[in-house]
């Protein structure tokens, strides 16, 4: 049975699209047939982040309105087998999407054998964000350790609890996971940044991972490469961990504590240094 997961946050610019691309690619790399849908109608970006902007012909609005078939609109990734993208429209507005039309499209994708459907939500709490979350089974709430982002995440969690199909039908609630991005263990340690435990305490949902502030994120979007393909970078490692936890594998949390390296470890570049 296909699982629908919304990547959401309320606030813009916290890493929803980066996370959608990285998690979608990570799931596909592990052999799960995955489609990532861009719900940000009017401001599509998933296509550029995933490097397929020149291959967009039809989009989500065309499919929802019956102007094109799902098969015509899907873009198959050239690097990763089992990874597909359904882009957003750049010319229409968010009203072009209907809840019924989205439901029909998701059902069609399920019948095509997709194991994971990742919905990349637009920012805000309006219609577009509600459309992206409505059919979700699980949610990844992307949050920066910063006041406005935490506040907006709390609002979004409230909406997931109240306005999704699962909530309306009184079914088992959408499972919410917290993903903290742009985290700096060093700044948190000296009291300049909210700690992971602070954000967890405030939002009260389970932690699925911490992505450290990393130059790799910009490198990935500059080149249109899903982050998980930038092997041996901290952010890629962190996202691969997230994918493993999402699939139910035990994976201890990393990148929360500042990496402690002793004097000799620094001097000799020893591998004895602990990764927090």
């Amino acid at each position, binding site marked *: 049975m296909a699982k629908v997961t919304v990547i959401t946050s309320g606030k813009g610019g916290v890493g929803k699209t980066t996370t959608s691309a990285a998690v979608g690619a990570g799931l596909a790399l592990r052999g799960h047939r995955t489609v990532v849908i861009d719900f940000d109608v009017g401001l599509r970006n998933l296509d550029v982040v995933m490097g397929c902007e020149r291959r967009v012909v039809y989009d989500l609005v065309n499919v929802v309105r019956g102007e094109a078939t799902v098969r015509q609109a899907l873009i198959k990734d050239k690097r990763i087998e089992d990874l597909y993208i359904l882009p957003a429209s750049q010319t229409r507005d968010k009203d072009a999407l209907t809840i019924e039309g989205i439901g029909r499209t998701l059902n069609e994708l399920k019948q095509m054998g997709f194991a994971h459907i990742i919905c990349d939500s637009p920012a805000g709490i309006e219609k577009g964000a509600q459309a992206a979350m409505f059919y979700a089974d699980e949610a990844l709430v992307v949050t920066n350790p*910063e*006041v406005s982002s*935490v*506040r907006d995440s*709390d*609002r979004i969690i*409230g*909406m997931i*609890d*109240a306005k999704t199909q699962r909530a309306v039908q009184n079914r088992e609630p959408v499972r919410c996971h917290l993903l903290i991005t742009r985290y700096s263990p060093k700044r*948190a340690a*000296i*009291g*300049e*940044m*909210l*700690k992971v435990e*602070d954000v967890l305490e*405030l939002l009260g949902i389970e932690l699925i991972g911490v992505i450290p502030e990393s130059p790799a994120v910009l490198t990935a979007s500059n080149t249109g490469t899903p982050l998980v393909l930038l092997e041996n970078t901290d952010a890629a490692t962190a996202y691969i961990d997230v994918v493993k936890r999402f699939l139910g594998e035990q994976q201890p949390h990393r990148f929360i504590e500042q990496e402690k390296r002793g004097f000799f470890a620094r001097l000799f570049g020893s591998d004895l240094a602990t990764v927090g």
Partner: protein
Amino acid sequence: MAFFDFFRKKSETAATAKDRLQIIVARERASTSARGAQSYLPKLQQELLEVIARYEKLDLDQVSVNLDRRGDCEVLEINIVLPGEARTERSLRPGITPVSV
């Protein structure tokens, strides 16, 4: 003035952020009532009114039902003003203990 800034002790602003957020989040959760906590209040008010009206002649405007948050618990406050010349402004409030929800 960078030279002097160097000696100034940096304040730990993350603690301030957490304190502010705790207040913001608590207030917004109460006002948006995501869990539908307040949705039954109008109906409760109506039904209470009907029961009391069997015993006393009541004015519709003389009953108020409020849900407040005090510290960790929610307080359901019901305030009924009974009519009548001899006991104007007599309130049932002292007789009704706040109910923790």
